[in-house]
């Protein structure tokens, strides 16, 4: 009786021991995690980066979990002066990952400390670069041509477009910030994947003066439009006058030409017709003139020598 009881107890004890052993030696690694195994605080072997069920020496080894996925960093918005002495708020963010968990475990240990390091390294790099360049380099990314309404006064326009031209652009500036920070962060087992500028804004006092400038600029543009309107209207009026003159003179010319041609043609016709016997024409026309021009008011003195009166003195001669 005692024996069978003892066996039962033994079985239970062994089972429990095996369970405890299994539970203290097996551990799970999630897709988003990686593990550094330590033995009495000392790192043992390679870090475990593959997810799944893993085993370690029970009791004496500890699994230290670290995230493997992309981690957040959100910079505190800070006031930064640019090279052209404009004060702006710059808000940045970054994403990073633990590239070397062993180094990370040795140097920073936890995410809180890591974020502090990121603050300490990215922020100065950001300030350094943004301060070294005019504001437009941080705002613009490319030299893309913009429609700024400024088509008039060429000189001013040229200056303005130069003002908005960039050598680096935002991408290049952030790239340099990342490049500066990245090497420093490598020592902590941290890979800075990217850093980006979330917001750039004028500080309040600057903003007010910018608003004033915007207003002045708009007023000038408005005036320009009005002047353009008037100029264009004058142009149209001039065009109108010109058109009228042209129409009238052309019509006159055409009319005169037409008349002239007709006259010429008529003359030609007359010449052709009358040319056959100019004498007869003269005779006939003279007769016509007599008919038309002589009337009651006219007196006529005829000599008997005339053809008409020659018979007055007798038929004989």
């Amino acid at each position, binding site marked *: 009786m005692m024996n069978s*009881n003892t066996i039962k107890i033994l079985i239970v004890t062994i089972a*429990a021991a095996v*369970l405890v052993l299994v539970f203290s030696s097996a551990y*799970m*690694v999630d897709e*988003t*995690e990686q593990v550094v195994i330590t033995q009495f605080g000392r790192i043992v072997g390679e870090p475990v980066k*593959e*997810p*799944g069920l893993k085993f370690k020496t029970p009791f004496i080894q500890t699994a230290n979990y670290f995230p493997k996925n*992309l*981690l*957040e960093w*959100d910079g505190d918005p800070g006031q930064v002066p640019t090279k052209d002495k404009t004060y702006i708020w710059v808000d940045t963010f970054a994403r990073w990952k633990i590239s070397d968990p062993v180094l990370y475990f040795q140097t920073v240990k936890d995410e809180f400390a890591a974020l502090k390091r990121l603050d300490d390294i990215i922020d100065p790099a950001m300030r350094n670069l943004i301060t070294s360049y005019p*504001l437009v380099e941080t*705002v*613009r990314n490319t030299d893309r041509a*913009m429609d*700024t309404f400024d088509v008039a006064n060429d000189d001013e326009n040229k200056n303005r477009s130069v003002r*908005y031209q960039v050598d680096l652009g*935002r*991408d290049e500036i952030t790239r340099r910030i990342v490049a500066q920070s990245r090497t420093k962060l490598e020592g902590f087992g941290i890979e800075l994947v990217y850093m*980006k500028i*979330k*917001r*750039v*804004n*004028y500080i309040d006092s600057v*903003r007010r003066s*910018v608003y004033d400038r*915007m*207003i002045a600029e*708009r007023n000038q543009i*408005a005036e*320009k*439009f*009005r002047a353009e*309107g008037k100029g*264009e209207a004058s142009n*149209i009026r001039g065009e*109108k006058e010109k*058109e*009228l003159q042209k129409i009238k003179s*052309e*019509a006159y010319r055409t*009319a005169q030409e037409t008349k002239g041609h*007709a006259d010429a*043609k008529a003359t030609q*016709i*007359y010449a052709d017709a009358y040319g056959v016997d100019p004498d007869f*024409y003269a005779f006939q026309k003279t007769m*016509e003139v007599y*008919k038309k021009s002589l009337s009651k008011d006219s*007196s*006529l*003195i*005829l*000599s*008997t020598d005339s053809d*008409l009166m020659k018979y007055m003195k007798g038929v004989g001669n």
Partner: protein
Amino acid sequence: MNWDWEKLRDNQQKYEKKQGGSGPGMPRPPQMDELLNKFKGFQFPGVFLVGLILIALYFGSSTFFTVDRNEVGVIQRFGKYNRLAQPGLNFKLPSGIERVTKVNVKTPETEEFGFNTYGSSDKYRSSAATPRQESSLMLTGDLNVAVIPWIVQYRRSDPRAFLFNVKNVKSLLRSMSESSMRTVVGDRSINEVISSREEIALAAKEMLQKEMDNSKAGISIVNIEMKKTNVPEPVQASFNEVNQAIQEKEQTIYKAREEYNKAVPLARGEAKRLILDAEGYAIDRVNRAQGDATKFKAVYDAYAQAKEVTKKRMYLEAMLEVIPNLGSKYIIDSDQKNLLPFLNMGTNGSNLVSPDNLLRKGE
């Protein structure tokens, strides 16, 4: 569970020892307290069974699960990605071995920037948009300030990437949206920002999608919609003035065009009339000439056949026509000289007496 089971075991053993080791637990002496015995006999298998059932239920219930129509289940075995579960009833190994996370991959979600939809239940929005206007104030490429509110609609297109690659995807999406939108706006003038919203939304969408792909966040951007873009309140009046000036400009030009359109077609009409007049004159002139010519020719043809006679006839006919209509007529003998003094040319001359050979016809 284990612990309960062992405790039960312990209790049982204690109980058996109390019985004085008279044998194995099952056949108990009948002289024991009947009630207690019955109670124990009942309780022991009862509790055991309940425990077993509970364990079975626990494992059993964790072996099946349903996935909603717009979801996908991501199954991990010991933390490692194993497979995807499609909508419907699915099975897996009990919890502790396999774990399922359901991700909605169909329904687009919306993030708002620069304004708050009232009654929105999303905690993120209010916290990330502090102060509210701040996220919509942007610098344009010509260093002006614009107010641009917008929304981003996205979908979790790759559940595996969404779950495993990025911590706090939503926060990444928000930051990246702001960054992308500002980069796009930063390359455009204030005019373009106000007038070409569609184009900006498209460019921002493209950029944001690229960035999310770079981060392997498993997010697909469905749409970026720009709300009303504007300039900050203090400068709005001056921008309106520009619009007004544009209107004025157009109006002035239209007015001038109107004058033009009024005058020019009229002048064209008049010109046409002038030309037509001239053409009329030309036709008239030529026709007359031709008529005259034809007439002359006809007369001439007749004349040519008997020149002397015709000429005489024509002369006489003309005279016949002319002379009766004349006022005073004087006929002077060709021998008579110094005639002129007789004539009083100025007067009617009707009472003038001419010498004997002067013919006088009735008036």
